[in-house]
């Protein structure tokens, strides 16, 4: 029998600026996680970015991304995971949507897919890999330069399966 599936876990709305946001104590009872970020920064910087970290691990991450900046295309790799990489950060609003499949599995590394959009800078898609078989119990979004602005929101959902 099909059952309702798309479950809200937690949302934070920043009441003041913050350099990072962390979801902790994530229950392991779902198949997928979806994180929707709608945010701006306290300043603009075309070279800045937002890291994605699982369980506080700043190692064991890698990514491949592609972006269009309105005039050129680019693809890149990095030895870290990202919510937003190419095309920087902005004081206007942007979206990032992160899909993490089998986040609580202990028999595989964790692959996540990201769509990250800043309309005055870029549209981007990223595939991340966290080279760990540990279940993901926390997710941190860390801005490399300038903070997430007050009013930014970050919502986490679980998808059963």
């Amino acid at each position, binding site marked *: 029998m099909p059952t309702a*599936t798309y479950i809200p876990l937690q949302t934070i709305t920043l009441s003041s600026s913050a350099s990072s946001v962390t979801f902790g104590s994530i229950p392991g009872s779902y198949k997928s996680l979806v994180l929707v970020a709608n945010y701006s920064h306290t300043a603009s910087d075309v070279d800045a970015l937002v890291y994605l970290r699982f369980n506080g691990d700043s190692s064991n991450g890698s990514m491949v991304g592609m*972006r269009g900046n309105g005039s050129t295309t680019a693809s890149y790799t990095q030895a870290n995971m990202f919510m937003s990489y190419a095309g920087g950060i902005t004081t206007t609003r942007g979206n990032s949507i992160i*899909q993490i499949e089998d986040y609580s599995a202990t028999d595989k590394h964790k692959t996540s897919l990201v*769509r990250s959009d800043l309309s005055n800078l870029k549209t981007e898609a990223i595939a991340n890999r966290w080279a760990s078989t540990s279940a993901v119990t926390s997710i941190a979004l860390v801005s490399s330069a300038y903070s997430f602005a007050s009013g930014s929101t970050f919502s986490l959902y679980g998808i059963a399966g």
Partner: protein
Amino acid sequence: MPIPLGILAAAGVRAAGGSYEHIQTYNVGSSGSIASVSFNVASYASTYQHLQIRAVVSAANTAQWMNIGFNEVTSAGSYYSHFIRGTGSAVNSFASGGEGLGAAYMAKFSSNPTAAVIDILDPFEAKNKTVRALTGNATAETFGGPIMLWSGQYMSTSSVTSVEIYASSTTFNAGSRISIYGLKAS
């Protein structure tokens, strides 16, 4: 009785229960060696408007690709597909027709798990079936699918009765998981 959060007794807003529902999950077991997964969706035509598949997979041959097919139709002329991808060094775009196992090159296998979120709109309507997928595995390679936005079409106006996910020229490894969900329109 207070109205539950998120529910309005107004036209166009539906009662609690949700519009996104899990239908079935296939977990490839410890023996692995499964070349395809088939979901029978014929009985859901009156329940759901759209379908979504979420998958995380690996395969015995990491040089191969994952395909999607419908109604067990494998004739090459029934499918066509396109994608844009980032290889880690370049963005490129390709088209592929007539691969014989469904719409081809939807996702590439690698030593990393490959993730895919696949959206099939109006599968039960009298139109060709257009599929959109975001797939990737973060493995930089020139002919691979590290990060891709993919589209495919099944050129038949028949209602979808089954959806097949193929490990083309290989088999899914143990630990692979493919889930199908239904999205309601009322």
